[in-house]
């Protein structure tokens, strides 16, 4: 279980994350939503130790994440940041193999190879596993990175805007995969999302941030309603229910 307790982060004088407390439910998808500059990515970075909090603490299994040894921590929690420029020429298989780094430090044993094969198979990348990353489409590349995280075999998977630059088809594909990871492999997924409808359709819990503070926090159906959304985004957003999915029609509001 991950518990975030009263953490804050300042860049210069400006508080980007301001005394945020959140509990991440195990075995569920939790989405961080909110307007630009709300502190979603910064919060995710602090949970995953990429950034140190100024005050407050993040607890993994009741002990401060800063006290975890880095290789032990990387066997429990993985994070994918939005990778804007990736000009490294690696094949998919080489990338996925790095997922085993916390375990093997680069000397792969039979167990590692098995995990790598499974991860590639799980993401349907077997045919193109020897292709270079810089020759792939955005969707394939994102799948390759998720395959790496599967090989890393962590209980918690944190993703920072994984749908960035993906078209509709690939966005849906990635979200379905994340759902599968939760339901089939029992992972806990925490994800920063821009598109509120993906958050509504695919997540179990939503944490809404605004100006560095948690403004709403709860099961998806409690957040996806016009009153709550008005508070988060300052917009009147009507909700339409279709096939038991709640869709926010914000395009002309």
């Amino acid at each position: 279980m991950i518990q975030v307790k009263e953490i804050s982060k300042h860049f210069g004088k400006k508080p980007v994350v301001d005394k945020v407390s959140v509990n991440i439910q195990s075995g569920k998808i939790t989405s961080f939503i909110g307007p630009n500059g709300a502190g979603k990515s910064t919060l995710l970075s602090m949970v995953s130790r990429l950034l140190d909090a100024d005050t407050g603490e993040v607890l993994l299994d009741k002990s401060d994440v800063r006290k975890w040894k880095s290789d032990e921590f990387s066997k429990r929690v993985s994070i994918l940041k939005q990778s804007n420029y990736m000009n490294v020429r690696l094949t998919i298989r080489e990338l996925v193999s790095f997922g085993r780094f916390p375990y093997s430090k680069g000397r792969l044993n039979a167990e590692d190879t098995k995990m790598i094969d499974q991860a590639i198979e799980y993401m349907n990348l077997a045919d193109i596993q020897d292709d270079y990353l810089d020759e792939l489409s955005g969707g394939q590349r994102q799948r390759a990175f998720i395959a790496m995280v599967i090989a890393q075999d962590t209980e918690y998977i944190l993703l920072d805007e994984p749908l960035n630059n993906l078209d509709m088809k690939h966005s849906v594909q990635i979200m379905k995969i994340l759902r599968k990871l939760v339901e089939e492999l029992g992972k806990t997924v925490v994800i920063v999302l821009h598109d509120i409808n993906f958050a509504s359709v695919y997540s179990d819990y939503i944490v809404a941030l605004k100006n560095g503070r948690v403004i709403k926090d709860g099961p998806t159906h409690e957040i996806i309603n016009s009153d709550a959304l008005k508070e988060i985004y300052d917009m009147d957003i009507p909700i339409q229910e279709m096939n038991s999915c709640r869709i926010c029609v914000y395009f002309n509001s």
Partner: protein
Amino acid sequence: MKKRYLLIVLVALSLLSLFVGVSRISPADLLDFNSEETQIFLISRIPRLIAIILAGAGMSIAGLIMQSLSRNKFVSPTTAGTLDATRLGILISMLVFTNATYFQKLSFAFIFALAGTLLFMQILNRIKFKDAIFIPLVGLMFGNILSSITTFFAYKANIIQNMTVWLQGDFSLILKGRYELLYISVPVLVIAYFYANRFTVAGMGEDFAKNLGLSYKRVLNLGLVLVALISTTVVLTVGMIPFLGLIIPNIVSIFKGDHLEKTLPHTALLGVIFLLLCDILGRVLIFPYEIPIGMTVGVIGSAIFLILLFRGRAYAN
């Protein structure tokens, strides 16, 4: 690009290199151990070959490590000011100690090479505009600033003549007893090979490395120390060999990708082959005189660099 073929070419060129030169030596002469030919062979030709092999492998690997850690295909000891910083270090050691010993020069040059490279990496961190071509330009400017400082003080102290030895790489001065410092690159290359995986992971960026539990800063610092060690020993014994660390890793990367564990042996082999070829050319072109290696590598290397720039912009981005 198979390792096997590279090895065959390497051995062939090595043999050629041993028997090319002003004094004609044939394999038969070597049967008589006391002959003049055998002496030349042992004192000059073999040390020269070993120096070329160590410097070639060392400089290419130094370039490979720098490109991986800086995440830029055009960063190398030549384009990041490392070599210029090394020369500045040598100069300062000569100014501080009137008769600087080898060890004093080595330690000063090493400290300056390391500091210069670190400074460049700091500059790199501050640059918002990370264009693949802009960054090496900044590096070249940085190197030129260091270089003009060196020239200024060398001029004032009347040791310009001394400094030119380190300006241009030259293997003709390599004799037994004058190149052994280069053996430092052997353990350095071994360490580089064992850390190849870590360098590759670090090359994917700090966040990526941290996610996999790698202590990014430590790997970065180790890489820079290795680069500084190689650059220092090469500049002190042979002189500057420009472009080698830039073009060789790039050529290998096009064919074999960027997984250092896989590309490190190829990079080292190709670096040696290229340097051997340039050295033999330099010895034959104006026979019986010699063109210094810095010049041949500079000319051929800059031509290849231009080709890489033109065809490689897409791939470097």
